[in-house]
């Protein structure tokens, strides 16, 4: 079982901090899971030009391929100009249309204002649904005031990150079992 955590911006610290907590929780509670962190700030990724993802090179290919190999993905995103950042949208554009089929995807959002609460609901979820992801419906929304110097200081957030990780793993295990049982019926 492979879970990829994505920190979806090439700038700032809050999303990365929140993803760090998430990954730490994942590793501590589910030691058998293979966990990979993709902080988009660490890679030089070209803009999508529509080619098959295998045909990209370097960091672009590595990031696309790592996501394609995942069983589940935890996406962390900040909110820029009332939407997801271009760096994250570009990742979706690099992948095939139904790239997220049979993959469980969960989300956490960092934002400077509580007014951004529904952006993941209205802008991120439709993309993930179009790409056929199995969604963990509830996401963790974290505001600027919950952070202090690269740490999360609101214990309630940590509690909810813990639930997000659990929901992701439980949904993945459940969905995989159901799918495998169905596939076993096919006889091929």
């Amino acid at each position: 079982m492979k879970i990829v955590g994505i920190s979806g911006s090439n700038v700032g610290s809050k999303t990365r901090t929140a993803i760090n907590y998430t990954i730490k929780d994942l590793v501590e509670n589910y030691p058998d899971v293979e966990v990979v962190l993709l902080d988009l700030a660490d890679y030089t990724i070209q803009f999508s030009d529509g080619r098959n993802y295998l045909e990209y090179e370097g960091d672009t290919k590595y990031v696309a391929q790592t996501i394609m190999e995942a069983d589940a993905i935890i996406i962390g995103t900040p909110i820029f100009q009332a939407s997801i950042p271009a760096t994250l949208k570009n990742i979706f554009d690099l992948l095939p249309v139904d790239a997220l089929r049979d993959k469980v995807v969960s989300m956490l959002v960092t934002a400077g204002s509580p007014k951004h609460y529904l952006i993941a609901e209205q802008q991120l979820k439709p993309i993930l649904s179009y790409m056929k992801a199995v969604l963990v419906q509830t996401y963790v929304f974290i505001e600027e005031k919950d952070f202090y110097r690269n740490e999360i200081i609101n214990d309630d957030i940590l509690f909810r990150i813990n639930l997000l990780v659990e929901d992701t793993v439980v949904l993945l295990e459940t969905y995989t079992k159901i799918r495998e049982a169905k596939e076993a019926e096919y006889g091929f």
Partner: protein
Amino acid sequence: MEKYRIDQRKGLEFGIYSLGDHIPDPNTGKRISAEQRIHEIIELAKIAEQAGIDFFSVGESHQEYFTTQAHSVVLAAIAQATEKIKIASSSTIISTSDPVRVYEDFATIDLISKGRAEIIAGRASRVGLFDLLGYNLKDYEELYEEKFELLLKINEEESVNWSGQFRAPLKDANVIPRPKAGYLPIWRAVGGPPASAIKAGYAGVPMFLATLGGPVTSFKYSIDAYREAARQNGHNAKELPIATAGLFYTAETTQQAQKEYYPYINEGMKVTNGRGYPKQQFAQGADPRDVLNIGSPQQIIEKILYQHEQFGHQRYIAQMDFGGVPFDKLRKNIELIGTEILPAIKKHTAK
């Protein structure tokens, strides 16, 4: 239809095509040599001819796990090895080729085969060949349109005057040799959304439609759009042949066909497209309403006749060698086509 060597009285034409993929057999993990693969493709054309199959074509793919990049050379060998089966490319990537050279090659194949060659010109679904052959991906659309137009012009005019963006101009150029009948059937390869089919209709050229999976009705939409666009632009849609191309595998029972073929399609898709074939989608492929022609001969007959009823197409071509299917299995497929599928299809579609 005569211009395209299609005689509808004989019913739906049945063909075989290969992309020349060169993939390890997932059951053994072993890959045959490129030499053996090419010889097997030539042999496949020979046994297809013996089974009464109408058409055989080979495509070019300039990427890992493929072996017929020089597809016109392979087709020349097939022309020499066979006597009556029609032969074509599926497809020639005209965008990254010189139409003059392509025409010279295929006119020569037509002469070697004594009038059996056709060209199916496409624009590539994968784009690695743009770098390899020295073209700019930014010109993807325009390269195809301009070069396809030139190809048609060379086919229609013995002395060509032409100028364009991507090739030196031609002044009173005689592109020789000429094919046996003076011209070649040239088809436009179409995949994906109806927009591409509409362009083929506007141009009034025959359409080769890739139907890789999904409901028959979604492809009917492209076919209807093609005919409508042709009519709107003053072409007689009744005179324009349509061919469909798709995945094929048959065995005694549908279950056996699925069981035998799934590892090939799944592994083949993984290595060439980066994603396996979802099992649920493959299982659904057995439904008569799905375009995937995988099943028992009876199931496939039913499917092809349903597709014919929906599409009213003139030719269907089957891709059965994708994913490293070993040759004895291909032989078995050809045998079932020749003895069971072909006679039934001809019986029901001949006029």
